[in-house]
């Protein structure tokens, strides 16, 4: 599965010139110290041009809530990257779309741990909905689907 994602990301990089993203993108990941899929996700990001500083924490639910992630849309880790919050196992193309488009939102999240998502095992069995959220109390909106 991981290989599929790497190839997809390469394809995307070749197809769409993104000069702003040519340099390494620094990200900080807050994760549960006992969750292994987050580390696999960090490795996946690193294969795709990111440098991920992994910080194991025991208060992830607080960090994600302070970061504005809606309680019913939490992913399994929270990443701070280039002024945005990326929560959960969001495919890298969608992360890069966020960093390129730079919409006026706080961040995006893929809730839970869907099978087949980067970092997870298994086969993708459903459409994933990545939500955009803000800190102003407005309802989350759909940012992307995959």
């Amino acid at each position: 599965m991981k290989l599929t994602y790497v190839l997809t990301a390469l394809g995307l990089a070749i197809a769409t010139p993104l000069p702003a993203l040519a340099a390494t993108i620094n990200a900080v990941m807050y994760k549960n110290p006992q969750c292994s899929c987050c580390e696999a996700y960090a490795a996946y990001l690193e294969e795709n041009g990111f440098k991920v500083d992994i910080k194991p924490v025991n208060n992830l639910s607080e960090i994600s809530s302070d970061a504005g992630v809606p309680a019913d849309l939490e992913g399994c880790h929270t990443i701070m990257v280039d002024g945005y919050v990326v929560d959960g196992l969001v495919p890298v193309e969608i992360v890069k779309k966020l960093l390129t488009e730079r919409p006026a939102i706080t961040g995006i999240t893929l809730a839970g741990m869907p099978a087949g998502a980067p970092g997870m095992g298994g086969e993708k069995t459903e459409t994933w909905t990545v939500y955009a959220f803000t800190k102003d109390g407005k309802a989350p909106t759909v940012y992307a689907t995959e």
Partner: protein
Amino acid sequence: MSASLPPARASAVDERRIKVAPGEARFSGEDGPPTAAWTYNGTIPGPALRLRQGQPVRITVENGLNEDTTVHWHGIRLPNAMDGVPGLTQPPIKPGESFVYEFTPPDAGTFWYHPHADSLVQLGRGLAGPLIVEEAEPAAFDRDLFWLLQDWRLTKDGQIAGGFGNMMDASMSGRVGNLVTINGTVPADLGVRAGERLRLRLANASLARMMALRFEGHRPVVLAIDGQPCDPHEPEDGRLVLAPAMRIDIVLDMRGDPGSRHAVIDDFYDGLAYTLTNLAYDKAFPFRSHPLDAPLALPRNPLPEPALANAVRQEVVLQGGMMGGGKLASVGGMMGMGMPGMNGGAAWAINGMSMTGDGHAGMAPQFTLERGATCHLTIRNETAWWHPMHIHGFSLSVLSRNSATVPHRQWQDTVLLAPKDVIECAFVADNPGNWMLHCHVADHQMAGLMTVFRAT
């Protein structure tokens, strides 16, 4: 038979009173800022109950909270009706009401007491206390110390954070906090004298925080686990792994130099090690020139020996949680459908069934054991998470872990399973009633990692 017994004389029964009520914790000492908490007799932790082995006790618990409560005397083998599980063994103690617990502790050792109603919130707001059953003959130690370890999740202004039972905690490692206290305060150094021998009773009263304690420059020897003496031994790598609800009694011979200082480190979580406290040696001349050579082993408790040849086999399989592989498809949560435990649903199951909450009427036993039968119990952790599994009413003789024999003749009421661990253990069903078996990570218990079995 009981009708012919004369009534017990008042002096024969040890009488105690505990009032449960809102109060304050002072984590940084008496002069520090207060934190609103729930208390037994106004203190955090509750008062240390020192009982005598074989001596009846009567404890009146009065509920001054605005919600139901009960008290579970964790690890004590007592009559089912005194076990403190609401709905299952007693009606809950309603606000303003009292319940009288009466039992005679058969085992000497280190235990603790805590609520079994609204467990996650009541434990998380501070309700826990040490319970010591003294040996008939006092053992040879210079000092006997109790460390009741509690883990608090505090907000930036030092109050207990809300958000109990959120789905991330429920389906991952539980509500681990950000402040660890020993006996209710952030630990200062422990003053010690060179040459003295300490008995240290460790009890982890946290909701979810696992601990692995190392005493730098010292070699602790384990004397008892969960109140039950074992063959004295040094723990693997010198680390004392203490999951929620577990107790370990150690002996510490103070072999450091006068004036020296040694850290006590908890390094259970990768990348999150911290110094819990320090052993600070007095500068004075050693208390004694040679360590005591008194024997270390504590007298064994009168536990019934399992008859393995004729044992009834039962298996308990732990399922669910994040990265749970979709095992909870039929019971409300699974990988691939968002977060297990969403909307208050079950995140965990035992043998495919999720019993959630604290205990309630009508919980059907998973299995039934004939009185006096030996049960050979397999506990299989199919999840990706750690679970301290607690059995009520019995102690388990721990036989093996992942097929390797467990040495030192260990008996435990709370057995920690790492992800994918398989534990074999045995006990004699000599205590009739419907008994709980559940994970003592409070979030996991509330979200379905609980079952009930029956001894006839």
